[in-house]
Every structure is written in structure tokens, then in C-alpha cells.
């Protein structure tokens, strides 16, 4: 991999799981990045020719009141069939913005939240999880701000840490969503009028901080530094990787190529390749390469495109987004 010019951000990244979100805007040849710092979200838009960068900072809000000091837990884009929304989750609630962060579309107050978000692109919904273990499902209209809470899923007893929707783009897989919590429990769901729980994969009290769902396969990153690959619907373990020497903070999958990216507190980012063997009902995992961000505990690692041609990394106390592209 080549290190490309890194992007400076206005303030350093906080030590939060999955603290980097990337949105590719092909029609405008731009990529947006967001990184959370305490009660502020740093947004950068980078042109593909590498020449133009523009910065914006969003501060957490409470309803219509400007500038709150409540800490932001995560900022990520939700890609829905007809629109993209930037969703910020803070200690006080959930704020949804238009994808460039310009206009707030919706605000939902929560009593005790700590949440990330995920989207289900098939349907017009997206989902929040909160520290009590509940998962909130919202219906999003294709335009406007008439967002409604449609369902609350209560399967987890520990704080939910991450969620993922099936990212292969194919409709052939039964599982649509996987949710993970602090005890390592993974719940696999099917979306519909009401969400249906398909399977629960136990965690044996090892916290799962990051999870991805691709071609009916769950990739989960744990506090012990292990990555485990499961078949979503049955919970069968396909692979166990002693991947990192410290807590994993971020996983990402490039859906077109099957590349898997993992970033951890041990300062390493590793790229793996997943190959499905449906005949053997197994998944192969191959290590491709690793990069070290010296003296930095990684908190966000994301591919910048669906092929995994490039990826970006953030770290605690680091005021830049480091990017790598395939040589």
C-alpha cells in the first residue's frame, strides 16, 4: 500500500469505537469523512484529484438549542434508497442532518443514550441502538423531516456497541441486520413489517466492538483482539483469527472484493481477504498486509470505496486522517 497525503482535521479524534465514517459522492467526485472529537464532529470533503479540501464542524445540539456540550458518541452516514443522512448520536439524543451537514432534519431525545447507527438500504428505515440494550427502528421518508419511530427491538441486556446491515447488495441472504453488544452477544435479524430475530450468537463475556455483515456472513471484532467469522443465520463459526494484540476498535468490509479491514489499539491496521466456499460451507480468511500508525491507538478504519482500493484511518490524539491506496 502507498501512504497518500493525509488529511488534516480541525481537532483530534476521540477514543471511540468506529470513529470514522466515509461517504463517497461519485457524481461530484468527492469523498466526505467525519471524525468525532468530544462534542464536535469534524467533517472534511476531499475532491478525488486530491487538490481541494473543505472543512466543516458540527456541534452537538439539543433540539433547536444551539451548541450543547453533550458528548457525541458517533457520527455516520446512512445511505438510504432515496437520500443520505448524516446521523449524530450524543448523550442527549439523536440528530439527523442532510448529508453535507447543512440542515438538521430531525431530532430525537433519549434519556440515557449511547448510540451508533446503521441503515437498511432496502427499506426506508434506520436503526439506533442505545446503552440499555434497546435498538430503535425509524422510518425515514424519501424527503422532508417526517421521521417516525416504528419499532423497538429488545434482545440485548448489555449496551449495544455496533450494528451492521447486509452490505453485499444482494437480496438472496436471509439476514438483514446484525447487532452486537458489550457481552459479545450477536443478534441476527430479518427486517420486514416487524423485525424478526433469526439467531443469537453468544459472546462468552468478551466485548464485541465492531461488526459487519456480508454475504450472509458476520465478521466481528472483539476486545481480546480476535476477529471471528460466523454464518449469520446458524451461528456456525467459520474462522477465528488472533488478529491484534489489543482491543479492536473498527472493522470494515469492501463489498465488491471481500476485503476486510481491522484497526486496533495496538496501532496496527490489517487488511484481510475473505473468500466464500459455499460448497464446503466455509469461509477462507487470508492476511494480505498490515500498516502501523506509530504510537497511535487506532479508533477508526474504513474503506473509501466498494472495491477496497483505498482506506482511511483515524487514531486517538491524532489530528489527521491517514489514507492508503493500493500500489
Amino acid at each position, binding site marked *: 500500500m502507498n501512504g497518500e497525503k493525509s488529511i488534516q482535521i480541525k*481537532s*483530534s479524534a*476521540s*477514543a*471511540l469505537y468506529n470513529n470514522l465514517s466515509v461517504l463517497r459522492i461519485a457524481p461530484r467526485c468527492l469523498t466526505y469523512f467525519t471524525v468525532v*472529537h*468530544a*462534542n464536535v464532529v469534524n467533517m472534511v470533503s476531499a475532491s478525488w484529484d486530491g487538490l481541494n479540501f473543505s472543512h466543516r464542524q458540527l456541534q452537538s445540539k439539543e433540539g433547536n438549542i444551539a451548541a450543547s*456540550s453533550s*458528548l457525541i*458518541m458517533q457520527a455516520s452516514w446512512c445511505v438510504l434508497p432515496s437520500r443520505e443522512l448524516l446521523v449524530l448520536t450524543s*448523550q442527549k439524543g439523536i440528530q439527523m442532518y442532510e448529508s453535507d451537514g447543512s440542515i438538521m432534519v430531525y431530532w430525537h431525545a433519549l434519556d440515557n443514550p*449511547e448510540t451508533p447507527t446503521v441503515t437498511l438500504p432496502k427499506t426506508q428505515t434506520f436503526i439506533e441502538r442505545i446503552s440499555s440494550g434497546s435498538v430503535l427502528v425509524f422510518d425515514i421518508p424519501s424527503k422532508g423531516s417526517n421521521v417516525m419511530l416504528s419499532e423497538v427491538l429488545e434482545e440485548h441486556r*448489555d*449496551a449495544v*456497541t455496533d450494528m451492521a446491515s447486509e452490505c453485499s447488495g444482494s437480496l438472496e441472504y436471509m439476514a438483514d441486520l446484525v447487532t452486537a*453488544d*458489550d*457481552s459479545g452477544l450477536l443478534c441476527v435479524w430479518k427486517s420486514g413489517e416487524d423485525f424478526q430475530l433469526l439467531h443469537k450468537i453468544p459472546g462468552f*463475556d*468478551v*466485548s464485541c*466492538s465492531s461488526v459487519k455483515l456480508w454475504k450472509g456472513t458476520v465478521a466481528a471484532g472483539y*476486545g*481480546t*483482539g*480476535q476477529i471471528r467469522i460466523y454464518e449469520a443465520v446458524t451461528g*456456525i*463459526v*467459520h*474462522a*477465528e*483469527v*488472533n*488478529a*491484534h*494484540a*489489543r*482491543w479492536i476498535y473498527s472493522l470494515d468490509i469492501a463489498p465488491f472484493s471481500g476485503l476486510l479491514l481491522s484497526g486496533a489499539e*495496538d*496501532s*496496527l491496521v490489517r487488511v484481510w481477504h475473505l473468500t466464500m466456499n459455499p*460448497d*464446503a*460451507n*466455509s*469461509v*477462507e*480468511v*487470508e*492476511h494480505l498486509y*498490515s500498516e*502501523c500508525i*506509530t*504510537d*497511535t*491507538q487506532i479508533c477508526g478504519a474504513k474503506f473509501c470505496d466498494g472495491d477496497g482500493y483505498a482506506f482511511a484511518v483515524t487514531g*486517538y*490524539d491524532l489530528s489527521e486522517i491517514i489514507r492508503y491506496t493500493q500500489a
Partner: protein
Amino acid sequence: MSMRTLPLLFINLGGEMLYILDQRLQAQNVPTEKTSKVMNDIICTLFSKPFMEELFKPQDMYSKRTQRAVLIRLAHSSIMRLNQASMDKLYDLMTMAFKYQVLLCPRPRDLLLVTFNHMDAIRAFVSDTPAILNQVEETYQQLIKVYTPLSDGEFQLLRQTLLMCFQDLQIRVSAFLKDKVQTCSGRFVLPLGGPVPCGSEVPGLIRLFVRCPGEACRGQEVCHLFPSGGAYCGALPEGSFHMSGDRVITLGTNMYSESRPVQTQVSESQNFGQHTKMSIAPNLLAKEELTLLSHLLGSLENQDPDKTRTFYRVNLFTVDMEEEYGNCVELSFQVLNIQAAKDQQAEEELARIVGEFTEKGEPSSSPRSKGDDLLTLMDELQ
């Protein structure tokens, strides 16, 4: 974020303060009985029942300004008086040492072992004073009761909350630079090797589980190795989470020794960064500050009912910077007095806080009058 950070924050920072004071006071040939008195007084205040009860209540982290005010008050709960420069340096050292410990902790749960290391040393400092020793023992029990049931995920959240508090602090400490645990840019060195945390495996192994299609075979395990890029070895045994025992982790033990003078160098840009971050949610901060300090004040009054004490002025750090500051400036209760003339920015800010209380009118019991009473009380104690 976590609501359980304060006891760990103040016990560990307090512990670092004691290590530094112990070493510096001895290095400056302060008589032993005075050093012991200083240490005992600080430990007694830190572990006083009202103070600990307040800290152990589940609550958000205090602002940096409040933390600093409390630690300054703690340092001055003894007969020792530090000038501004000494206090600043002491604070820098304490916070960077604890940041280092939080960052390098192998598992988030090991933060409790780091705390026990500080507690073990504190217990040794007061082993001759049964009354204070008792307070320390009670705090051990409280720590065990509150923290041992927390899950790994809850500990990680606690750690992340502490890391947010120390974000962007990159003061270079000469002891760390010499030991090569900190780089010239102020970042702490993260080694690519050493023992993995308890419960983790050495990276490098991929295990694939292959199932034979159709037949009733049990399946196979195929293993591959990959280069881990580091020199890792197996985990050390787990440290003791009991009242005493081998903690195994060395983070949190006393890293200062007679032969090592303790100094700090401060890079200019960092100071500005720290300054601008100080003013978050001023209304809340003022209220918390006053609550906590009222508890501290309570224990101070008990210690010295006749309120006549001779203070012992100390310059902790003998560096050139001392000359620039001129004479010692007594850092007393004026830190919170809104008439304080020293820090123009702080004065305006505090005046604004008081103004906001009056203008907006808090719906609950009037903090304005409470604040007034406390400030008056503190003025009277001078």
C-alpha cells in the same frame, strides 16, 4: 459516557501527586516530620469520608477547571504552600503520568490494578497512622465493591471517558523522554511487542473450520500463520484485585527515585490548546465545583478548628523558569473568589457565571445564594 470515573481519576492523580511531593520534598531536604505531615494531611483529606462519598456517586466527569481546582485545594490541604509555577508543574506531571497509565493499560480492567498500585503505596505512607490507615482501607473496600463487578465493556467506556479528558495533552516530561516512553513530539510510545493482555492470544494465527459437505464427518481445523509485525509473547498472570497481593502490572507504581530529578518542559502550542478547552458548560461547572469544595471544606475545618496555622512555602522544582515568576505568590482561596485579580480571563468568566445565575434564575433552589455563602465562608477562612 461513564458515570464512574471520578474515584479512579482523583485517587490516581492524588497518588501521582504524593509520589512527586515525596520525592521533591526529600530532595530539597525538607525535615522528615514536615514531609510526613504534608503527606498525611493530603492523604487524610483525599480519603475523607465526605469527599469519597461525593466522588463515588455515579456522575459525569468534572470539567478540567473543576478537577484542577480540587487538586490544587488538595495539595494545599496540608501545611505546604506552592507557588503558581510549582503548582502548574506538579499538575502537568500528575496528569501526564496518569494519561500514560490509562493509555498503556493492557486491558481496560487493569485500570483498577493501576489504582491499587497507587493505593498500596499510599497505604505504606500512612502505615504508622491508624486513623488515616483506616480511611484508606475503607476506600479499598469501596473500590472492590463498586468496580470488580463492572464488565470489560464498562471498563473500556470508563477508560475512553478518561482519555477524552486527557485528549491533546502532550506535555513533554523529561523522565519519560529519558526512559524513551515518550517521543519528542509528546506522544507516548506504543511498543509493538511484549506480553499480550490477559485473555488475549498472541497475534499471528488464523484458524479455519472446514466442514465436509454431505457426510457426517466432524470437520477439520486448518491453521495458517501470518506475520504479526511485532514481538509479542504470552500474557503475564493476572494481577490481584483483592485488598492486597501482587498486582503484576507496574503502571501506577512509584516511578520517581532519589537519583532522578523531576522536571517538565512545556511546549508553547499546548498551553493555548489547554486554555481554550477549559470553558465547557460554565453553569454546571460552577455548581459542581461548589458542591465538591464544600465537602473538602468540611474536612478542612475538622482538621484545624482554630484556623491558625503556619504555612510552609515550597518551591518544588528548581528550574530557570522559577526566576521569571519572581516571588512566591500564595495560591489560596482566591482561586474561586470572583474578585481575584490574577487571572483576567478566569475573573471575567466567573463574573459571567454569577451574572447568568442572577439573570436566568435557576428554577431549583437558588445556587446564587448558596455560592455566595460558600465564597464568603472561604474568604473568612483566609
